[in-house]
């Protein structure tokens, strides 16, 4: 059943066996899993079934200079951010779940093997067909390179491409038709109300856009608002526990992670490899796949590195031109009045690629192509998606500014320490050394020796994958939730989504969000049946 809190009667009561707050990938997955139990389910969504500015504007947050405003990177209506994701999917790797001595605060309370059966089920949700156990069977033209890639200390991996599944659109009919489920839209969570003994949650307070409030009661509660809002919801609910629900050990909001994305290098492979790559575009009858490189587990352990996804994207001369890159740097130095290093090299590059610079300007302004050289093959762009190490100082806190509902906005504090920039640079070196030794190709890195900070500032983007702010650990002193995603010390409060990830891996998290949500749903089924 679909209901709109904005038009519900004044004295409407909201009771259920389980209340799920947030209808994104995690919330919808859990709701869908629980429908067959026959238990009464209430699924709250702050937005509407379709986009509305009044809802989306609640995602404005304050943040550090580098970081993006979630207003632009997340979506606040039924289906959540699956309404605009690009469909890139893959499982995390077994090593991602391990406690790695060289990655402080790493280690999940369950292993890859524990999660594997749920990954299989997650693949159905995201419509990428059955998970391929032997990825090499789909390497096609690249199979002859398998041994060389392994000898280079790298793995060639398959990525799955979801349609992409828009969870709201895909699953709305099924959920709204379920007799035991109510989708309550335009119902914004205001506070999680704890029992005085902090043992559990007694109710939730929700608010509409007209200022009207109501109370929701259930046996079990699941907060599934996304990697930023999950932490904010706990922090805002501080009537009983100072600092917010579950924050006895000052962990809520901390260890915030994203996937920094860096245009780190250009790869110039041999002509044979280019042909093989062109022929290697794997697909089956029902699916499309992409290929990426990454460091092998052995390489990560030996070099004490975190991983990065290294896709190769065919790039034309406009992308790989040293002259265009130099022109950008000159332009930036002039506009920001900062010092420009290696001026002569930049000038030489600009002059050598003057035709490409003109061509890029012409195309940007809608003129017909002049110089054919611009469309020639220029190499493979390596846009690397990094795993970010858990960092206690990266965090979501409450700002003094308030949103339209009168609630304190979130403030995002984010940094990328020098050591992680060095790690990525080392990883590019591992790739270059390995591929060079195998005669596969050569690398030009954009992460030059003496100006790593500046290069990151210029080249860095984000996956907009918000993770880690209510991290899971069996130890209450190290995690907000336990291995079942239950808030430590609270009998009936669970957190779903990427905020529970203790480490973020180096691939997009949606597959793992769905897998952990199915795992959580199985646990909730047992609780509801008890």
């Amino acid at each position, binding site marked *: 059943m679909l209901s709109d809190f904005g038009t519900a009667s004044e004295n409407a009561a909201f009771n259920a066996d389980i209340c799920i707050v947030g209808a994104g990938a995690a919330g919808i997955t859990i709701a869908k899993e629980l429908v067959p139990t026959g238990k009464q389910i209430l699924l709250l969504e702050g937005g509407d079934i379709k986009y509305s500015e009044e809802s989306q504007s609640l995602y404005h947050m304050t943040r550090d200079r580098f970081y993006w405003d979630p207003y632009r990177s997340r979506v606040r209506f039924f289906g959540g951010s699956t309404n605009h994701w690009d469909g890139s999917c893959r499982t995390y790797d077994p090593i991602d779940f391990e406690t790695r001595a060289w990655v402080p605060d790493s280690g999940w309370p369950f292993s890859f093997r524990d999660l594997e059966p749920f990954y299989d089920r997650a693949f159905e949700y995201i419509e990428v067909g059955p998970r391929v156990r032997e990825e090499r069977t789909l390497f096609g033209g690249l199979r002859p390179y398998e041994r060389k890639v392994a000898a280079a200390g790298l793995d060639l991996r398959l990525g799955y491409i979801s349609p992409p599944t828009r969870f709201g659109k895909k699953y709305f009919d099924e959920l709204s038709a379920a007799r035991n489920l109510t989708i309550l839209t335009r119902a914004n969570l205001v506070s999680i109300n704890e029992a005085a003994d902090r043992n559990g949650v007694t109710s939730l307070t929700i608010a509409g856009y007209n200022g009207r409030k109501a109370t929701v009661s259930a046996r079990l509660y699941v907060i599934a608002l996304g990697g930023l809002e999950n932490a904010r919801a706990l922090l805002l609910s501080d009537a009983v526990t100072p600092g917010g629900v579950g924050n006895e050990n000052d962990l809520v909001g901390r260890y915030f992670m994203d996937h920094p994305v860096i245009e780190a290098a250009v790869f*110039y492979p041999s002509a044979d490899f280019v042909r093989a790559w062109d022929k290697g575009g794997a697909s089956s009858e029902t699916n499309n796949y992409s290929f990426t490189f990454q460091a092998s587990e052995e390489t990560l352990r030996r070099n004490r590195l975190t991983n990065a996804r290294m896709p190769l994207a065919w790039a034309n*001369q406009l992308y790989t*031109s*040293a*002259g265009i890159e130099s022109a950008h740097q000159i332009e930036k130095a002039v506009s920001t009045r900062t010092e420009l290093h290696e001026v002569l*090299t930049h000038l*030489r*590059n600009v*002059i*050598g*690629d*003057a*035709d*490409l610079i003109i061509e890029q300007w012409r195309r940007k302004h809608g003129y017909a192509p002049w110089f054919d*050289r611009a469309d020639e093959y220029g190499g493979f762009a390596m846009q690397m998606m990094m795993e970010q190490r858990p960092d206690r100082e990266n965090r979501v806190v409450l700002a003094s500014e308030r949103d339209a509902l009168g609630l304190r906005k979130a403030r995002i504090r984010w940094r990328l320490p020098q050591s992680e920039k060095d790690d990525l640079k080392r990883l*590019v*070196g591992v790739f*270059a*050394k390995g591929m*060079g*030794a*195998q*005669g596969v190709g*050569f*690398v*030009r*890195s*954009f992460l*030059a*020796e003496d100006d790593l900070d500046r290069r990151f500032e210029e080249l860095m983007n984000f996956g907009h994958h918000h993770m880690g702010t209510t991290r899971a650990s069996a130890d209450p002193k190290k995690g907000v939730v336990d291995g079942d995603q239950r808030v430590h010390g609270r009998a009936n409060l669970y957190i779903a989504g990427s905020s529970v990830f203790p480490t973020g891996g180096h691939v997009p998290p949606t597959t793992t969000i769905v897998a952990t949500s199915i795992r959580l749903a199985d646990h909730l089924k047992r609780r509801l049946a008890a």
Partner: protein
Amino acid sequence: MMTPSRRALLGWIGTLAPALGAVAAWPELGEPAATPFEFLAASQKAAALKLGQWLTKNGITADMLVGSQEPVAPVGDIRESFAKDPLITVDGFLLPAGFCRYCLDAYRKES
């Protein structure tokens, strides 16, 4: 009477004119910067000479090619050098130090 903005514009043109002349006379105008990897398509000796020249042009000297605190030994096989030598960065290109040393030596002897 000239407005201040028109005077500023003419001033800019006056400043840029000699620079544009210098750019037009630049011998490398329109020649894209060759990557060191393109040199490797040539025969080994020719490749070593070209790469040696390119490294010299980029300010690389043999003294700068240091392995684990010792000068790196020249290695003629680039793949072998990639496998065992540290990498150096020249204009962003990641190259094995031993092979670069070999190319610099070859270029120095030739010139």
